[in-house]
């Protein structure tokens, strides 16, 4: 083993897929994510986004933080920890969920995988081991950070099933959204496949032991050659996730444990996760605070999708009511190539998420050859997701 004292010589870890990603990352567009070095793009963001929406894409999700949660009390523990009901979750099921602190402020969101009666895995953006361990007091459950023990590759796009079929996993035709299965992929061996993703498209996430990662990559690339498969970076994925209307921790909301300013933490209702909250399942972290906030109507914010006039991305803009009154800010924005609309996610002060009508204006500073053009563009609150194709849910998936 290398000398741990030399950790600073390589401040960012390398994903198990790194040798392949490094070879393909022709512009050396790297960015840190959760302590790993990850690719921003592979040379052409437009083509990469196009692969997500038109053919097939692979995106390395190994840096996702993963916790193994196991034990006789795992269900009870997770029901106390998270917002949604876990007791009714089927074995082989996957749940998008979130968890809160005592004040009902969201600590993070993530996906919960159920392997059997007593074994789960929680994947998320930030590290939470102390919180998870302290939450385990009084429960017969063990919690382990398995981030480095599991490599993950997200295969997304209309031809993703065709790729998997070519790779030897035709039986995945029956796999429904938010379910997972174990398959054997030729030279790779056993792979856990979940029908999940961050794109609102047909797609899968493939989980393997790190030492099988390169075999998986190579096998998918070979199997997908005729199905337009290509690696994509975070920039292309971000466009797709905004089109999908998905939120990202510490981008669209500040994780409560990261928030320095007391007014930055958000309750689930304030970031569009109100549908998750199951107040009837028994005690869970934040229940009393969420209940009180709803009862006393102290919720301040709402997270909405905006459709903005024009084609200039509104990233970071302030949202106004009429011309003057500030009522919120854009947290993510893009001109959507798929929907051909100028879309954004925004935090708006209540009740303007509902009552603003056509009065919302977005202040955009468009930089045109070293000069800013200030624009006040009308915007409308619209339903998320902005893009939600039927192929996302079709079972069996279509062969494109």
């Amino acid at each position: 083993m290398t000398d741990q004292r030399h950790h600073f010589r390589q401040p960012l870890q390398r994903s198990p897929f790194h040798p392949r990603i490094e070879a393909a990352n022709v512009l050396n567009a790297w960015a840190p994510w959760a302590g790993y070095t990850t690719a921003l793009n592979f040379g052409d963001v437009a083509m990469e986004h196009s692969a997500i929406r038109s053919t097939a894409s692979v995106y390395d999700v190994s840096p996702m933080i993963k916790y193994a949660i196991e034990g006789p009390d795992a269900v009870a523990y997770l029901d106390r920890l998270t917002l949604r009901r876990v007791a009714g979750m089927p074995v082989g099921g996957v749940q998008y969920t979130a968890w809160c602190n005592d004040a009902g402020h969201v600590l993070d969101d993530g996906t919960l995988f159920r392997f059997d009666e007593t074994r789960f895995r929680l994947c998320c953006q930030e590290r939470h081991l102390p919180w998870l361990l302290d939450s385990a007091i009084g429960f017969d459950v063990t919690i382990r950070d398995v981030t480095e023990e599991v490599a993950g590759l997200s295969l997304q796009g209309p031809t993703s099933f065709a790729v998997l079929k070519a790779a030897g996993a035709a039986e995945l035709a029956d796999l429904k959204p938010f379910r997972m299965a174990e398959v054997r992929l030729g030279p790779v061996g056993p792979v856990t496949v979940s029908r999940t993703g961050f794109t609102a498209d047909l797609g899968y996430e493939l989980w393997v032991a790190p030492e099988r990662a390169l075999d998986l990559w190579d096998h998918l690339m070979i199997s997908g050659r005729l199905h337009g498969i290509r690696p994509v970076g975070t920039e292309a994925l971000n466009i797709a996730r905004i089109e999908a209307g998905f939120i990202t921790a510490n981008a669209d909301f500040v994780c409560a444990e990261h928030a320095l300013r007391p007014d930055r933490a958000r309750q689930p209702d304030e970031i569009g996760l109100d549908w998750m909250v199951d107040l009837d399942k028994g005690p869970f972290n934040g229940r009393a605070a969420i209940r009180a906030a709803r009862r006393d109507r102290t919720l301040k914010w709402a997270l909405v999708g905006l459709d903005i006039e024009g084609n200039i991305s509104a990233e970071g803009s302030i949202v106004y009511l009429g011309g003057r009154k500030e009522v919120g800010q854009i947290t993510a924005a893009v001109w959507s190539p798929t929907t051909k609309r100028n879309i954004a996610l925004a935090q708006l002060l209540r009740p303007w998420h509902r009552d603003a009508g056509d009065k919302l204006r977005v202040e955009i500073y468009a930089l045109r050859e070293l000069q800013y053009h200030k624009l006040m563009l009308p915007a409308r609150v619209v339903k998320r997701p902005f893009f939600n194709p039927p192929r996302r849910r079709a079972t069996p998936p279509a062969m494109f």
Partner: protein
Amino acid sequence: MPTPSFDTIIIGAGLNGLACAGRLAQGGAKVLVLEAADQPGGGALTAEFAPGYRVDRLAHLVTHLDGRMLSALKPEAHGLNWAVKSMPTTVLSAEGRHLTLTGAYGASAPGLDPREARRWADLRARLLRHAEVLRPLREITPPLPGKGGAKGNVVALGKAGLALRRLGREEMQEFLRMILINVHDVTEESLTDDRLRGLLAFDATLGAFLGPRSPNSLFLLWHRLSGDAGHIRWPSGGMGALAAAVTRAVEATGAEIRCKARVERLLTDGDRITGVRLEGGEEITVSRVISTINPRTTLLDLLGAREIDTGLVRRVSNIRMRGTTAKLHLALREAPEFLGADLRHRLVIAPSSEAVELAFNAVKYGEFSAEPVMEIMSPSAHEAGFAPEGHHVLSIVAQYVPFVRRGGWDAGARDGLKAAIMARLEAHAPGIGALVTASELLATPDIADRHGLVGGSWHQGDLAVEQMLFMRPAIGIARYATPVPGLWLAGAGSHPGGGISGAAGWNAANEILGAA
């Protein structure tokens, strides 16, 4: 299943449980107090430790008894008599140069040389003035910083503010200068007599995980003085008689007290309190439960961590409970001779502030002090009934003794601790060892095991500035209410802390009556 003829259950019939019961019953509640032991009293307990020899088993002096409780419940009308209303303190010297303080915390100290006596008079007056500022705070629900106070508390807060203003500009500055410093520095800058400095150091750190040089240790002396202004009382018949009188007074209000009824589980409907289950399985339905036992035991063991949010579990788990106090009870065939000291006084062996600090050093490293400091009280010197005619008993509070000892608490360790205490006694009362006919040692973990005092902490959580007021027992549950509707805390673990007092129970009852 007994019919639910009660609307309130109080867990624990210590002074806080009794005070809370009496106040609530007077306020119209139908109260049932459940006590695990075979008699009420909690830390106020007189028991036989050898045939014919009785002592106060835990607390053996009264410095803090809540005045509101005394005037409202009138235990004096139910048999409470004070054998001593202001017990003098004698700091023992191995050379027989004892120093005796009489009156309210040494109003008179004839053994001091005249210049030191003046310096002591100045410091004493200052300490009492400062303690007076804190006194109104004892009687209120801790205010939340930034949220204003509850209606009733504005008055008490105002009183504290007024007391602070009344100190005058210079004295207020002095108060603020001294508020967080240590008792050693204060006595060093004000006094020269080691006996006096040793006493102040001892009193400030008694029952705490602090040495006289630890930051904030002066605050605990203020805390002590804010009770009965420095008077030390002892009830006729011992602490058990005090408990019995208060019990009768509480029963006269209509509250019922059931002993040998250990609560094993708090019951909820997943939302609010619905009752309690006793050891043995009996369940009692009730919508309001007030626990005066340890807050951690209450929330994590009786209720269960699952019922409360993780942040609170974390804070409750982190309440520091580090008892440092052991008790030694001695049966003596005749009166011990402390080189001329009066056995009816509170006798203190703490030769200097440095000696107290050195004694504290050991406990930091998981050992008991080789030369412990101690407080000695002899009930038999005051009254018959504690020892056979001509015989005597001593009740000794000794520290510092760790709860978790490096190497564990085996019989050898207990023998070593007893030998260390006896060696100090022998040095101050030569020949005392030969008079001992029986003894009982309660090391810190024994006190924890036998009386449910987690970590051996007499106060259900260290008394320390960072665990006081709105931080006692923990942020979020300092106003006696818990996040579980119907469950309240009212023990020594809550503001204003322990000691034979009842203040926390009384405050909680006020809060409950106000909230109802």
